[in-house]
């Protein structure tokens, strides 16, 4: 991902808009955007492609909450962190606990939860290979941070659905003696490695756990079934771990795929926040696509197929550069676990400590073309980027520096997004696909 700055493209847009005189008030792409302190320009929509439907209800729905809803200080302390409640039981119907602040993440598959929030974490049966318990290094970002801890069997209940027995990860930095409770590496670390920074607590991480409901059924999939050096899964003794392949059935996995009928995917329906940002926002996570009356795709919803194993990406063209499965590792995808639009641009960035966040002097309207893997169908998506005030935990116009194109949570605002699980068919097609 290029680091070098070039003269702001934005300036050209400003000049063009000034040249249009009074008409610029009505011209898409001129000024506008919400949330910038001191901005006196015309207001563009925070959510230009609004299609969100009224809130759904029923046993196949879960609440999504952002910001300070109910005095939330876990997810609510972080920008654009959509969270929900999930119920966990070590065995069917016993010692069950409903856990709040589970990050709704379409960028990963699998469920992970801090041991510290489970009152009976020791009663969950370990997943084993050859009799040895399995530890997982769930890597995020550049791979040097994320979650470490054992895989266990759990009964997971989503909304009013039937509980599904699946492997999940317990987040526990001290597992197999690999890290201290504060995250310092043991000298003989043989799993995530000495340079890895494990999540250590819900307040540090910004979630009690992660509900990964992405395009894949499994966290790693086929890449980890044969390669022992996958660096995700390890068999562990009390103090040492060694890499292991792991069958898909033993991997942590998307619980939606195991539901009896609503197993084709999910829909995230989140309304548009205020232009300047919101302190709280609620939406709905709907289970299943085309399996109930409340998850039947609306007319006009288009599916954009993603590539197959292992990466599940589609195409995005931004400022003349196309990111696709062939431009690895600069990929394009939709990820509710990313708090911003991530892309490379010449926009100016914010002052410390937010030097990776774009802070244009006035809001800018941008667009990019989304296409299914292989190039069709396609659609042009408009979005706005403004300098965040860093006062609100829900912001629809935040952009950050990154490689490829990551359509983060702002993409979801004001738009129903369908996440079609790999190999599962609905009226929108066979997964993996995104639809909106």
């Amino acid at each position, binding site marked *: *991902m*290029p*680091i*070098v*700055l070039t*003269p702001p493209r934005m300036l050209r847009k400003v000049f063009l808009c000034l040249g249009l005189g009074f008409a610029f008030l009505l011209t898409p792409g001129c000024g506008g955007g919400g949330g910038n302190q001191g901005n006196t320009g015309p207001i563009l929509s925070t959510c230009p492609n609004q299609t969100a439907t009224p809130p759904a209800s029923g046993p196949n729905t879960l609440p999504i909450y952002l910001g300070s809803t109910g005095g939330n200080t876990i997810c609510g*302390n*972080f*920008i654009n962190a959509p969270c929900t409640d999930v119920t966990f039981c070590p065995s069917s119907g016993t010692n069950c606990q409903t856990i709040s602040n589970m990050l709704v993440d379409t*960028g990963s598959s699998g469920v992970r939860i801090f041991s510290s929030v489970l009152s009976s974490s020791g009663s969950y049966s370990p997943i084993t290979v050859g009799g040895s318990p399995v530890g997982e290094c769930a*890597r995020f*970002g*550049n*791979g*040097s*941070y*994320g979650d470490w801890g054992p895989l266990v069997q759990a009964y997971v209940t989503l909304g009013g659905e039937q509980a599904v027995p699946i492997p999940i990860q317990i987040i526990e930095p001290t597992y197999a003696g690999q890290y201290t409770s504060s*995250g310092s590496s043991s000298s003989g670390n043989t799993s995530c*490695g*000495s*340079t*890895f*920074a494990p*999540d250590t607590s819900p307040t*540090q*991480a*910004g979630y009690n756990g992660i509900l990964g409901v*992405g395009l*894949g059924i499994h966290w*790693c999939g086929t*890449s980890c079934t044969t390669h022992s*050096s996958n*660096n995700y899964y390890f068999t562990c003794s009390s103090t040492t771990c060694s890499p292991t392949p792991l069958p898909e059935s033993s991997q942590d996995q998307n619980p939606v795929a195991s539901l009896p009928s609503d197993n084709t995917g999910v829909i995230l329906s989140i309304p548009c926040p205020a232009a300047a940002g919101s302190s709280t926002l609620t939406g709905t996570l709907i289970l299943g696509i085309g399996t109930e009356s409340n998850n039947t795709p609306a007319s006009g919803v288009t599916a954009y197929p993603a590539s197959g194993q*292992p*990466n*599940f990406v589609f195409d995005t063209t931004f400022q003349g550069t196309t990111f696709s499965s062939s431009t*690895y*590792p*600069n*990929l394009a*995808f939709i*990820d509710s*676990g*990313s*708090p*911003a639009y*991530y892309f490379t641009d010449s926009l100016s*960035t914010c002052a*410390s*400590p*937010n*030097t*990776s*966040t774009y802070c244009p002097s006035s809001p800018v309207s941008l667009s990019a073309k989304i296409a299914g893997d292989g190039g069709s169908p396609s659609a042009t998506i408009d979005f706005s980027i403004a300098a965040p005030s860093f006062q609100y*935990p829900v912001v629809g116009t935040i952009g*950050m*520096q*990154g*490689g490829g194109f*990551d359509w983060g949570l702002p993409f979801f605002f004001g738009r129903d997004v369908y996440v079609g699980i790999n190999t599962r068919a609905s009226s929108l097609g066979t997964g993996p696909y995104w639809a909106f």
Partner: protein
Amino acid sequence: MWGSTQERLHWEPAPTGPSRGKKPRNERFAGMGKTVKTTTGTRTQRSRGHLFSPGGLALLIVLSALLAGEALGPDRAWATLGEDEATVSRDRTVSAGTHTLLQAQGGVRIHIITSSSRTYREYVTPGGTVFAVTWQGMPPPHLGRILGAYAAEYREAIVRARTQTTYPAIRSRFLRVTTAHLLIDGGGQPRALSGRVILPDQIPPGFPVDQIR
């Protein structure tokens, strides 16, 4: 991002002074490093981008493709960031993979190590100092060894990036952090990770940063 007061805009020169920590070990490139330093700063870096952004990869010439890793012999392996190219790896087995050596512009050599679960690259100055390490797919399992003397500085930066110091904080899936000696960036989704660790002061003059990938 995320509250570090030590972060600076991308290529602002690193502050000098006794509190900066350890200096890069290889002093042969002190002059080269100074040259880079004096041309840093946002404005100059923009110029650098115009000069070098396009076409750099086209200059790559395959010198020696697809050598088996073991073919280099037991005394020659991948090196350590900031150290000499000939540094012997302390872990032969985890380095196993296909090794390709590319000759890039300006005499830079790129060692590419590809295995089933990752590709990683080590960028070496004409004088033989490793000035960048990158990975795609997975970080190398022995990343701590590859980072050598910079491993602690790297980890400290990662921990800081994951520690909330402001409200509301940003929990990012892309990293872009500058430390006293390192530029760290990368990110993505869990099945397609990528990352770079660069010693900006050691980049040979004229070698485009966007060719480090």
